[in-house]
Each structure stands twice: as C-alpha cells, then as structure tokens.
C-alpha cells in the first residue's frame, strides 16, 4: 500500500522534486484542481503574497462564460485583464492553427480597456465575413479557444516572464475529442520545450492517452535527448495521483513506463483479488478496454472483447457501457449485482491473460 498524504504534503513533494517536468495522472474527482491550488499557496512569495508561477486550471476556464442572449463568450475581469492590451486576435489565431478551427472571432474591448481588457469574444462562421452573425461554438471548441487564449497570453510581457518559477497546467483536455487531445499534447509539448530549462512545468490530466502522448514525446520523440541528463537519467517525473477525499497518494510510475492502462489493470486486479469490486470499477474497466482498442487501432472496444473471446460482445459492451455511466463516480460504494460481478471477473481475467496482448502486468 502506498503512503497516504495530505494534499499539502503532495504539493510540497512536487515542489521539492528536482526534475523540471512533471506529468501526473489522476482520475476525475481525485483532487487535481485542489492540488494546483495548494501548489499555488505554498509557492507564494512570503513577503508580498505574490504568485511566483502561472496556472492553467478549471479557474482559468471559468473566467469564460457564455452570454447566451447576446451570443458571445464573456471574459470575467481578473488580474490578467490588464495584459489583454498587448494581445490581438491574430496572436490567438496563431495558437489555433493546428486545431483547424471552423470559426472566426473578434474581441470586444471593455470600456476601461487599460484595466479590464477584453469584455468578451464574438464568434462567427468562417465564411460569414459579410454579416458576422454571432454563433455559439461547441464545448470542445470553446475549451480549445480558452487554452489558446492562455497560450497567447503567456507570451505577453509582464505575466509568465515575471511569474516565472513554474507553469502548472491542470487538465487542458477536458471535453476534447481524441484528435484535439492529440493536438493539445503537441501545444503543451511546445511549451515544455520552450520553457522547461527556465521553470518547473507540472501537467496533470485525467486522460491517460493525453499523458501517454506527452510521455512518449519526452521519452522517445525527436527531442528525447533534451530530456535526459548525461547519466541518461530522465529530466522528468511521472506520477499517478490516487485516493479519495483528503487521503491522497502520489505513486511513481514504474520503470519509466507510462502506460496507464497497465496501472488501471493493476488497480482492477487488486480490487478483484480483495473482493472489493464496486460499480465504478466498470468505468475503469471500460477505460482499459478503450485504451487497448485505440492501441490496436480500432474505434470500438467490442473488437477487444471479441479478441479476448467474449462471445456475446454486443450485450457485454452494453452492460459495461451502462455501468460505467458518469455518475458511478458519485456512488463509489455501490456493489454490482452478482451477474455483473461475474461478467467483470470474466473480462478482467481474460485481459490479465498476458499471452493475448503481450502485456507485462506490474504486480
């Protein structure tokens, strides 16, 4: 069993980590955002209480709110607003290039531009240059926009260059589809490449695909040499944040392998062995199945079920889907009915049969 800690202890552990790049995987609702807030608190300048680093997290995203009556994305005033005057639409557009955006936009300045910067953003269809009829963009597009807005803001004098101790990025890929997660991993990697020698960069996410891509880019990518010391040791650290409520633990990934589905299998296996399988484990099981499916280059995990010899794959897939519904996270003590428990054990057992995929399951 791993050592349980408080969020403050974990924040301190991260602060004391000598490597400048830290990737952390955590399930939703584990405490990533709390961790980022705690990190902010413990690193504040004791003299004047100023932040010494820069954060991107749920709070950053929450600065952007839709005004549905006027169809525009409002920007809440914050202490970042005064930086807006060094930015143009073009700066954000440049960051959006890899995402193949399907809209155009312009900023609406507030009356007191010096202090309050942009009041909102209006979006319109790319081809609608004549009327510029305001449109609402999808949730995913909005997330990407906000992320790119921050990427552009980072380059403005007076923020990231003065609060230059660290850059804490908390889950920039919530609500994104696979393609955009991949693209976002690239944009994050750009930031790492540019900044990691000057400051600490902490990236957390609930999405192991996203972190796996980053891990691969750090470990095996074109610039991999940059992220190794002379003695071949890594200049980055990878963790999994686990736990519930106040009890957290930060687990180092083994042997530099950052394959979360293996970690998940380990968790599931432990649950099965100790006979403590709850409904939420179905969600984890589904994540494993999906991850293996995308690893094998297929979209649906039904294929994986077929490969491991499940005969009635459609019915099984339906059950797994039904039981991994989002709100299982809120009912973590629900036990599955015996039939479903049997199904769970069956799938897991077949997956753990390492002959099938050649996995090495960590014990």
């Amino acid at each position, binding site marked *: 069993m791993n050592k349980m800690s408080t969020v403050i202890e974990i924040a301190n552990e991260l602060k004391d980590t000598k490597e400048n790049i830290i990737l952390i995987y955590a399930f939703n609702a584990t405490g990533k955002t709390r961790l980022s807030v705690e990190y902010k608190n413990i690193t504040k300048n004791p003299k004047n209480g100023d932040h010494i680093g820069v954060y991107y997290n749920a709070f950053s995203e929450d600065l952007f709110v839709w005004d549905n009556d006027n169809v525009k994305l409002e920007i809440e005033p914050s202490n970042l607003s005064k930086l807006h005057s060094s930015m143009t639409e073009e700066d954000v557009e440049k960051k959006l290039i890899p995402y193949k955006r399907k809209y155009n936009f312009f900023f609406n300045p507030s009356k007191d531009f*010096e202090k309050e910067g942009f009041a909102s953003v209006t979006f319109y269809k790319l081809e609608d240059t004549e009327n510029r009829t305001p449109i609402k963009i999808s949730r995913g597009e909005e997330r990407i926009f906000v992320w790119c807005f921050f990427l552009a803001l980072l380059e403005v004098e007076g923020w990231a260059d003065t609060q230059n101790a660290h850059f804490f990025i908390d889950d920039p890929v919530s609500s994104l589809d696979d393609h955009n997660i991949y693209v976002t991993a690239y944009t994050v990697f750009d930031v790492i490449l540019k900044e990691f020698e000057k400051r600490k960069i902490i990236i957390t996410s609930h999405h192991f695909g996203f972190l796996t891509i980053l891990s691969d880019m750090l470990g095996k990518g074109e610039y991999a040499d940059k992220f190794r010391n002379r003695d071949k040791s890594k200049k980055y650290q990878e963790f999994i944040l686990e736990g519930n409520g106040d009890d957290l633990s930060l687990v180092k990934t083994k042997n530099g392998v950052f394959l979360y589905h293996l970690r998940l299998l380990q968790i599931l296996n432990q649950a099965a062995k100790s006979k403590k399988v709850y409904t939420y484990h179905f969600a984890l099981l589904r994540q494993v199945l999906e991850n293996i499916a995308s690893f094998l280059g297929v979209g649906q995990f039904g294929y994986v079920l077929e490969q491991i010899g499940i005969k009635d794959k459609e019915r099984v897939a339906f059950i797994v889907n039904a039981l991994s519904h989002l709100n299982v996270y809120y009912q973590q003590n629900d036990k599955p009915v015996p039939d479903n428990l049997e199904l769970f054990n069956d799938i897991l057992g077949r997956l753990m049969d390492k002959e099938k995929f050649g996995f090495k399951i960590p014990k």
Partner: protein
Amino acid sequence: MTQKNQHKKLGDTLWDIANDLRGVMNADDFRDYMLSFLFLRYLSFNYEEAAKKELGKDYPPSPSKDLRADFLVPPPLEIWYKKNKGDIDEFEEQMRKKVHYVIKPKFLWSNITELARTQNGELLETLQKGFRYIEDDSFESSFKGLFSEINLNSEKLGKTPKERNDKLCKIITKIAEGIADFSTDNDTLGDAYEYLIGKFAAGSGKKAGEFYTPQQISTILSRIVLLDSQDPTTGYKTKLNKVLDFTCGSGSLLLNVRTQLKKAKGNIGKIFGQEKNITTYNLARMNMLLHGMKDTEFEIFHGDTLLNQWDLLNEMNPSKKIEFDAIVANPPFSLRWEPTDTLAEDFRFKGYGLAPKSAADFAFLLHGFHFLSKEGTMAIILPHGVLFRSGVEARIREKLLKENYIDTVIGLPSNLFYSTGIPVCILVLKRCKKQDDVLFINASEHYEKGKRQNTLREGKNGGPDDIQKIIETYQFRPKHIERYARRVSMDEIKKNDFNLNISRYVSTSEDEVQIDLEDVNTKLTEINKSIKVNKEKHNEYLKELGLKPI
C-alpha cells in the same frame, strides 16, 4: 454614371466575377490572379493610347468588328509592327521616354483576351512570356519580380497544362466581358482596383500580418499630415517633397495622401513605401502604376522595416540622411518581434529603448519618427495599449513626451478594422512642436454602428461628419470640448506618470443619473400620507369585526 459610381460598379462587377470563379481557390490566391490581369489590361490600354498619339495618323485603324477596347483584334499596333519592321526600335525608344515602358503587341490585353475567347492552347505560354517581358524588359528592369507570386502553372488552376490553360481562358474571358463596357481611364480602373483590394481584405476575413486600412481612416491620417505642421489653421500644404509609409501594404494609404493633396491642389515630389510581404509589395507597385503614377514618381521597397533592410534609410552619414515631410503608417498591431542586442544599439532605438518582444508598436513608431523632417508631421495608427502599457513602453513614452514630440492623441471607435476589434488610436508626432501641451481627442463615441463593423460618418445628407470633426479639432486645437477634446498640460501628464490613456483626460464615462432629492422627498411624503389613511381605514374594519387594530 458619375465617376464615383463608375469605379464602384466596376468594382462590384469584378467582385461578382471573383465570387463566381474562385471555386476551390481561396480569396487571397484569386485576388492575386485577378489583380494581375487588371493590371495588364491597364498597362495595355494606357500604352495603346500613348502609341496612338505617338504614331498619329500612322496608327492603323482596327479591322475588328467589335468596337470594345478589350476585344480589338488583332491589336492595331500589331498591324503597324508588321508593316514597319524597320521602325520598331525607334518607336519603342520613344515610348520608353513617353510612358516609361514598352509592351509587345502580342502581349497586349486585347490579344490575350482573343486567345482566351478562342480557347487557344497558347494562352498560358503567351501570358507567361508577357508577364516576364513586363518584369524584365518593359520598365528597363525596375519591376523585377512584379508577377513573381503569380504562378500560372499552379495546381490551383488545374492538374494538367491543358486544364490550366482552359481555366485561364475562362477567367480571362469573364473578366474581359465583365469590364469591357467600362471606361478605360486610369482613375476608374485604379479606383476600382483599390475598391477590390478593400473588398478582398474584408472578404477574406483575416490573413496573418496583413491589415488593410479602411479608406476613412486613411483620409484622416492623410489630411493630418497635409495640414501645415507648425500652424495647421493655415490649411493644407501645396507641396510635399517626400512622403513615407514604412508598412505600406498595397499602398492605399500613400495613394490616399496623394488624392487628398490633389484635392487641395497640391503635388507630391516622391512617394516612398516599404512592405515585407512580397505579394502585397507587388500589389503596391501595380497599384501605384494603375493610378497613373510613373515609375520615377515612387519607390517601393521589399524588406523588413524593423530590421531596417532598406539601404535608403540606412545612410550612416548624418548629412546624407533622408528625411520625409509626411509620414503615415498603419503597422501590424502588437506584432511579436525579436529585439536583439544589435537592435538595442540601432540608431533608431538607441535613445529611447527597445520595444518589448510582445509588441513591436513602439519600434515601428520610432523607426518612422527617426526619418521625420523638422517641419514634417507623422500620423500613425496604433493599438490603445501604447498609451498606457508599463515597462519599457512607459519609458519610451515618457522620453517622447519630455522631448515634446507627441502632438495629438486621437482615440477611435472600436471595430473600424476588418481584422480586429481591439481599440486603436492615432498618434500625431512632430519634431519641432509649437505648443507644449498634448491635444487629446476622444472620437471613440462618434460613429455609425454597423452590423459587421462600425464606420465613421462622412456628413452625408446633412448628417454628422465624424471625419471632419476629428480633422477640425486637430486643426484648430481647442482648449476644451466637453467629452470630446482637451489640451492637457505636460504637468498634468507628468502627474499621471506619463500615462496617456485618453479616459484620464477626456471623460468617456456615461453620464450618471441625476437624483432629484426634492422630488423623492415629495413622493415619500405622499406615500406616508397614504399609509396613514389606509391604516386608519383598515383599523375601522377590524374594529367593526371586533378584532385588534394593527
């Protein structure tokens, strides 16, 4: 049709053709083809007119049944060339003296349109040779690379040479037919060209780094730099020796200065422009020629302004330094750039400081200002941030103010530009300023709200004239106009830490609602009375019912 309507109608016709034809091609690519063809048409007609004059009665009549200039085939000049082989050299030499360029008959627009109309397989090759001829030989090679960005062999036109040839036939025929009925004088075509550039700029949405200055804002800048710099009340200058736009784009701002000066019955010595984007640079050169300027009347340089790649502006000998008596510019807003140690020592920036890397605004300003003559005026469009941003920009601002170089700050309404919603202002700078105060004009609340973007009103049908109001306020420099303008002393600016944010000096806030206390008092008294009356009435009822009063 009036002159003004002519160019708009022609512009609209061409725009329709563009919309009709561009298909898979994006607006920017199509723009370059279309504008190049128009340019060829212009050069051809202008040349034929001159040839007609030069040859007099020797100019052969056209055998063509079609009398429209776009379809005169074979071009009369070709007939003359065939008959007078021995005189060609002498004729071309004469033409070089008269119109500064030469075009061989087979490259003339009417011949090209004929090839297009008859779906001739030679079109593409002829056109290509024609373009090359104009670049290399027509102007004695002062127009190298004019069509370099026009790739007639582009996949965008078609996969095979045959497909490309066919597509070009279609495009050229359409253009020729669409515009054949319009006058061939250079103002109409030049203005239509200008109009189209504006349309393309608006229609393409945004294109990185390229900003088209709306004509109305151009007009404000032009008129400001044309007014006498020491005493604007005396009116417009009649002669400008040298005019510069160091981020000239397609040259429309420079042409606007020329137009405004012509209106004031004045003339320009020479126009200078610099542009970094090669395609736009070529457009600027064509644009100048299309407006009837001779190649000796302007000089456009292709290069990076911030790095000062133009030798003309890099003269080390101070006595030979070139100076301009009017400078206008609309540089890209808050451009990210890479200030280096070498640049910190650059003569343009040395005394003031290097603009931060997230916004080159002040680098552009200082570049231009370095070349402003003692009697000159510079007007530059910049984002509002330059008025108040801190750090090195604050220091540059303070220096410019202390040296009394900043004459006027004009805040413009938001959303006047195609590409951005950020608020922008105009800074007017002078080297030898008479007054020791700064004039602030808050023009940001005077505009017409548009669906897509805002516009400045031009006083049509007796309505407000936002442009004129700005110019007059600048010209007569009033002490104070409520909520619009004010002359602010250097002391006051100093008290504000040299922050130039307009709202600090000219009120921009909404009027607060006035509360009439006496009126409120009366109402409250009335309410109290009414409460008393009703309470008594209510108690009467309660009493009748044998209940306790309230």
